[in-house]
């Protein structure tokens, strides 16, 4: 669906307003039901036994004592989840991650599970399961895992993407390369070159709601799953495949979701809960503890990145190169590849080369986290860009403006850009009052840019018009941050009715056709396209019904401002029919009125952001304080600007946490030391200032209203923006994220001592 020129400069009626969300009252009164808030009669409590070892062969599991404990109704191991993946390597990894088979591959890897009448019995049963482990050497650090002689995690993995097929297995599952031009030649033209190595530690999405589900497998082969997820249709496919069920017999209902950020795009506990329920013949509720969430669910990659950028005296970048190593957990991934694609996406480069290495380590399987892989690459690149600007004696913003990608630029990942927003966000940042505000003692200002692709995907939507003229909109993309409000606005806009007449809900997998996940910033982008299409289909029927009522040709009926209007002077005496009137008469004009839509919402617009921040550093302790923060980002079109601001602010806050304090800390024994919110330090309210936002609207040519995705890009610039600010405040270049106080103090001391 292309941009509808009718909307250029047009005043929208509903889109762009800020009404209260349809699910709001339930959420402020405690009535909204999340993953753990649903229960079934006779339900059992499921609990998972997890490996305490980072790497161990499972020689045997004896569940007999647990099975004999009164109140225990089922105990399962990998044997109860046999391999039905049929050679699909990605699905096998998901299965093995849900329940370890021959080896436990990280601290927290599930090895068995129980269902019992209550939590206490389930906990006791776990203690009675005897696992015979043969402890193996482990590796958790990305650089160490790549070294010769590092403990090998999977001897069936041979590095893909090498010129010659390797003869020995490796912890590097893949090498990828992107770029164009000749970087060697480019560096030859450079007057200044900056070359640096960076490291970033592994972080977690940190959603406040732990994974939770209720599984109910019936003896007739059908099953229900209630679950907090970003994609219930995808969960259905995966669970059905892993359990050997027909997808149509598994009905998955997505609960309200208490945060996902990419971390709820992957099944963990759900196949286990279904297998427990199947074995016990009763419903099973499985809720992860916070400790389990950190140890066993979706962290992002830890990385090690080398960057080299060269420029001429006039400030033109002549060449840019990066080598990116990303951990993927103990399974193959494509995270470094995304880093390699996004690293230099903001710039217009004649010579660019990026190489990515996917590295297996004994850590949890890496899952997507908001613009996955892009923040780390941006941290390395934007730090080096800042440093290069300093060497050139150029202003950091001017240097970026001079080299910014624009329409027609060949992107560093290959294709040529259409209309894009990097230039405008930089210009807006340059003109922002924040840039000119005075700084206090020990304070520094930093800025950085970020890029994310944004995705669309398969989408299906139903729009039903009630006899009272109200509209219910059933969508299949899970609402993670207010999309029911924005989609209701879109339906109201198209139909020409008031927002209050529309109510959007998220339908279950048996009530609507397949939908891809809410990921890739696609929720509002994709479902609004499907909603527009469904509304237009409904309007066609509304016009037909009006034509029938008036007994005139349907081509003479137009739809305007929520009314059918007979066009032409000959119909001068026909009063317009409102949607409500047509709906009320629908029983006599052909029955219910609905619009349906199923489509692939491709063509999401790439998105850029520029962030500015001020940081104060205590030079005696390395402590930091965020003084001021500003986000400038292109939204294409902001459907519900308040929730767009919310996405900008939330992404920035997550990035701030990542930049300053969040990290997985592993002991020498390979065990995670900080599997809780006490020592995995996400920002608290008093850590942050207000986060100012500026929404730019550069229409996406592939969406009728110009919408781009907005959810992810905001987490890309903060790591670099803060690193640049800290470096400016403390006078030292910070190359290791998070910039925790001990790291900052050590850097300051090292600089002092020269």
């Amino acid at each position, binding site marked *: 669906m292309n941009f509808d020129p009718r909307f250029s400069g047009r005043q929208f009626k509903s889109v762009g307003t800020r009404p209260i969300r349809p699910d709001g009252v339930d959420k402020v009164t405690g009535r909204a039901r999340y993953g753990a808030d649903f229960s079934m009669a006779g339900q059992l409590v499921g609990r998972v036994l997890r490996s305490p070892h980072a790497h161990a062969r499972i020689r045997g599991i004896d569940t007999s004592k647990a099975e004999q404990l009164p109140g225990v109704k089922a105990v399962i191991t990998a044997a109860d989840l046999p391999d039905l993946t049929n050679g699909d390597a990605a699905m096998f990894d998901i299965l093995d991650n849900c329940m370890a088979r021959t080896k436990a591959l990280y601290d927290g890897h599930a090895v068995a599970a129980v269902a019992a009448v209550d939590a206490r019995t389930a906990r006791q049963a776990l203690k009675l399961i005897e696992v015979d482990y043969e402890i193996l050497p482990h590796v958790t650090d990305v650089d160490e895992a790549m070294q010769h002689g590092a403990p090998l995690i999977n001897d069936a993995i041979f590095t893909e993407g090498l*010129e010659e097929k390797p003869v020995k297995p490796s912890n590097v599952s893949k090498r990828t390369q992107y770029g164009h031009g000749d970087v060697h030649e480019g560096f030859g033209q450079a007057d200044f070159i900056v070359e640096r190595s960076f490291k970033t530690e592994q972080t977690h999405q940190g959603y406040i709601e732990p994974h939770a589900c209720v599984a109910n497998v019936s003896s007739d082969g059908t099953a229900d799953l209630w679950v907090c997820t970003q994609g219930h249709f995808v969960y259905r496919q995966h669970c059905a495949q892993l359990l050997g069920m027909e997808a149509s017999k598994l009905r998955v209902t997505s609960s309200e979701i208490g945060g996902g950020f990419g971390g709820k795009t992957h099944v963990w506990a759900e196949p286990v809960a279904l297998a427990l329920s199947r074995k016990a013949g009763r419903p099973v509720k499985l809720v992860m503890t916070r400790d389990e969430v950190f140890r066993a669910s979706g962290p992002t990659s830890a990385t090690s990145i080398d960057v080299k950028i060269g420029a001429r005296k006039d400030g033109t970048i002549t060449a840019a190169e990066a080598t990116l190593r990303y951990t993927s957990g103990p399974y193959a991934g494509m995270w470094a590849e995304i880093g390699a694609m996004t690293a230099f996406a903001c710039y217009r480069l004649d010579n660019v080369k990026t190489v990515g290495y996917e590295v297996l380590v004994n850590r949890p399987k890496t899952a997507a986290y908001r613009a996955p892989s892009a923040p780390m690459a941006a941290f390395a690149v934007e730090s080096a860009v800042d440093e290069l600007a300093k060497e050139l004696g150029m202003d950091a913003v001017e240097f970026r403006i001079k080299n910014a990608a624009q329409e027609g630029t060949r992107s560093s990942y290959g294709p040529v850009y259409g209309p894009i927003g990097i230039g405008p966000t930089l210009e807006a940042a340059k003109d922002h009052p924040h840039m000119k505000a005075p700084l206090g003692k020990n304070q520094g200002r930093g800025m950085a840019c970020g890029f994310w692709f944004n995705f669309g995907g398969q989408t299906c939507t139903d729009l039903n018009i009630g006899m009272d003229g109200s509209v219910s909109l059933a969508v299949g993309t899970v609402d993670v941050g207010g999309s029911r409000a924005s989609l209701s606005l879109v339906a109201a806009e198209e139909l020409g009715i008031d927002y209050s007449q529309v109510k959007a809900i998220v339908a279950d997998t048996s009530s609507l056709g397949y939908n891809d996940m809410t990921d890739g910033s696609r929720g509002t982008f994709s479902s609004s396209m499907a909603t527009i299409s469904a509304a237009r289909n409904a309007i066609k029927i509304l016009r037909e019904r009006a034509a029938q009522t008036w007994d005139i040709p349907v081509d003479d009926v137009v739809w305007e401002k929520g009314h059918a209007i007979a066009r032409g002077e000959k119909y001068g005496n026909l009063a317009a029919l409102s949607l409500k009137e047509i709906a009320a008469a629908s029983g006599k004009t052909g029955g219910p009125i609905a619009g349906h839509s199923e489509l*692939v919402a491709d063509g999401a617009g790439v998105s850029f952001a520029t962030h500015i921040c001020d940081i104060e550093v205590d030079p005696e302790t390395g402590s930091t304080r965020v003084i001021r923060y500003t986000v400038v980002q292109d939204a294409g079109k902001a459907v519900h600007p308040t929730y767009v601001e919310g996405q900008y602010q939330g992404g920035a806050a997550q990035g701030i946490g990542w930049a300053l304090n969040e990290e997985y800390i592993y002991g020498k024994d390979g065990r995670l030391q900080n599997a809780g919110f006490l020592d995995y330090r996400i920002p608290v309210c008093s850590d942050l200032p207000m986060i100012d936002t500026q929404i730019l609207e550069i229409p996406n040519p592939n969406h009728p209203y110009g919408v781009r995705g907005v959810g992810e890009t905001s987490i890309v610039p903060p790591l670099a923006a803060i690193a640049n600010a800290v470096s400016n405040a403390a006078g030292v270049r910070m190359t290791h994220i998070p910039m925790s106080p001990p790291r900052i103090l050590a850097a300051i001391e090292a600089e002092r001592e020269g």
Partner: protein
Amino acid sequence: MVEVTLWGALGQLAGGKTKVEIEAKDIRELFRKLAEQYPAFEPWIDKGIAVAIDGTIYRDTWSKELPQGAEIFLLPRLAGG
């Protein structure tokens, strides 16, 4: 005839080529002919290949037409958060 640029991993499968010329009107035909010429592509196509047409990325719209002279770029299918 459209000129299609391959990304590194795919290029290796095509004997080190970075660009191939294919007579195809839409993405479906492009994939079909690529699989004919380069059987090693087939598992990649099954897993999912994204096609950038003049900068816009298409992941599943196989009916998308390939305009004459358009810049066609094959990319791996990526995940988001």
